[in-house]
């Protein structure tokens, strides 16, 4: 589904990703761990097409398409979803309005009919319920005044509504309390653990992986994948940290 080959990317002329390769197949769940500043969020943004994140070498194909040739919103319409490490506030725009416009724009790019207000609200309500989020919160402006944990939970509600093919979740577990962690973990499994979907989890801690069992765990350091293993690798890192790892 996602094939990253020798990806090099710079931010503000500073090389951050330095030859990163990774393959993710449909039905798989991958986890990436790695020290602060390793380039995990940079990878996320680069795959999302964020302006300022410049690819200097390498290629990325997504479901057979050249991902890097698409505009950010086209990548979204193709089924790519990013869970943000720091979800952004948009004053004056309700979550409902935001997501309905976003979903209908995606549908337009895919040549599908727009959803009516009623149809959309049905989907939104179901997803909010499943994440234990009050519908009233969905009527509030996007992330404005949400607590850190609420913002992360909101990312998962958005994921449920947009129903992507590939989700890259950047530290979605950070800032969650014990109960919320379980709810988010269950949400990821419910929405994404399907034969035709895939997930890339970026996390610092083993605990999310107790809920969302990964098929592969990778270590990203110095802008490259330096080690790959199964779920046991996460436990090992929990014990030993990254000091053994060549950066």
């Amino acid at each position: 589904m996602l094939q990253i080959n020798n990806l090099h990317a710079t931010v503000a002329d500073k090389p951050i990703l330095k030859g990163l390769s990774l393959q993710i197949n449909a039905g798989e769940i991958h986890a990436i761990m790695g020290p602060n500043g390793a380039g995990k969020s940079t990878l996320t943004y680069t795959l999302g097409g964020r302006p300022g994140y410049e690819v200097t070498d390498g290629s990325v194909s997504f479901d057979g398409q050249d991902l890097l040739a698409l505009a950010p919103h086209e990548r979204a319409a193709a089924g790519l979803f990013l869970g943000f490490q720091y979800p952004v506030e948009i004053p004056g725009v309700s979550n409902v309005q935001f997501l309905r416009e976003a979903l209908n724009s995606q549908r337009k790019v895919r040549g599908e009919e727009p959803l009516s207000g009623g149809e959309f609200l049905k989907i939104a309500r179901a997803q909010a319920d499943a994440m234990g989020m009050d519908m009233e919160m969905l009527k509030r402006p996007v992330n404005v005044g949400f607590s850190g944990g609420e913002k992360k939970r909101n990312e998962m509600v958005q994921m449920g509504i947009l129903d992507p093919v590939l989700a890259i979740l950047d530290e979605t577990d950070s800032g969650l309390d014990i109960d919320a962690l379980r709810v988010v973990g269950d949400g990821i499994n419910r929405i994404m653990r399907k034969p035709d979907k895939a997930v890339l989890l970026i996390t610092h801690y083993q605990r999310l992986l107790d809920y969302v069992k990964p098929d592969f765990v990778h270590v990203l350091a110095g802008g490259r994948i330096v080690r790959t293993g199964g779920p046991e690798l996460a436990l090992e890192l929990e014990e030993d940290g990254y000091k053994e790892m060549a950066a």
Partner: protein
Amino acid sequence: MTDHQIKDQAARDAAASVADYEHGWSSDIETDFAPKGLTEDTVRFISGKKNEPEWMLDWRLKAFRMWQTMEAPDWAKLNVPPIDYQDAYYYAAPKPKKTLASLDEVDPEILKVYQKLGIPIEEQKVLAGVEGARRVAVDAVFDSVSVATTFRAELEKAGVIFRPISEAIKEYPELVKKWLGKIVPMHDNYFATLNCAVFSDGTFVYIPEGVRCPMELSTYFRINAENTGQFERTLIIADKGSYVSYLEGCTAPMRDENQLHAAVVELVALDDAEIKYSTVQNWYPGNAEGLGGIYNFVTKRALCQGARSKVSWTQVETGSAITWKYPSCVLNGENSVGEFYSVAVTNNFQQADTGTKMIHNGKGSRSTIVSKGISAGHSNNTYRGLVRVAPQAEGVRNFTQCDSLLLGSVSGAHTVPYIEVRNPSAQIEHEATTSKISDDQLFYAMQRGLAQEEAVALIVNGFAKEVLQQLPMEFAVEAQKLLGISLEGSVG
């Protein structure tokens, strides 16, 4: 052919048709144009064309003489090219604009805007001035003249007078005389004085005591919109305990031959009356290089004369090359209320200097000002507002909020509040913010599926929401689209 060239062409055609007659406007020859330039004869010509009573002509002449002694204002934050008042036409009958044979002749840029606004084809023809479109449009879109007739009958039943001001001058001279020039005095400012001398037509509304106007006057206005020209004059009188909501303007850019617009709008609300006046202004702003475009110098003022009277101005300003306008409230009545909600968008080389004045003379009078300025491109956007509290006005409250949103790095936003308080019991609050659309916000929205321009439109609409939600429903939707369209190409 650009919109501007169309305008020039129409003006040239008009000039040619006038020049053909030696005595042009004078007496026996029927012509629809006053000759170029501005003299006492121009004023007499206009008054004569309208068959005005003597008192009206005298009033105009007095204004004209006054205007000759005045000087154009000193433009604070505006850069206004000198205007040659002798090189313009001051009267043209409503028809003479050059009609087009079909929509194919309309500037494709304008057609694009119509399409984006979702305006039906037949209505587009009306707006663009396509030959014979008017009747067709009314038939197709609004089920014919009968709708207008129904509206008129309904208004008459309620006792509401809703007429061109030229008719009201003849039919309701006492009402007109009582209030015309009483809210905006003749000597108020250069452009208001000019308007007094040469105003072409406009709207007169009277809502009788205790009557709630049975419809948004916008509905009616929209299907009857005639080009009232560059010097428009509006007078709305809300008698005791009455209510009216009036919407002027149109979200679609209209063809217009006149570069200078200097309208005067006067509102008066008596005891317990309420007027809600909404404006959506989208005149031609000039091209991306800053050429052409309308100069819009408007004087709008409301007199909250009665106790507990209320006037609410809501404006969405996206058009014009230069906008100079300060819809204001003189709060004479005890516990009267003034409100001003404004969104002003400037892009490319547009300049806007707009705001309000709240003059608190009455005890317990209150006012709210919410101004949202959005500047993009090389444009300049200034909020200029005055809150004045008279010595006798006990217990006055004002809340002002001015927010500016910048797109790009070369646009300008300025906030110039004047506060004059002569009574210590007044509570005045002022909040101001300036922000930019952040890259974080844009990318977040794009990652969820919005194209860049959709993302900008969404964020801008969120910023302007408090004002947009004051608009009548049908126009709020169009105004939202309009904000997005006005800012296209301003990011990235």
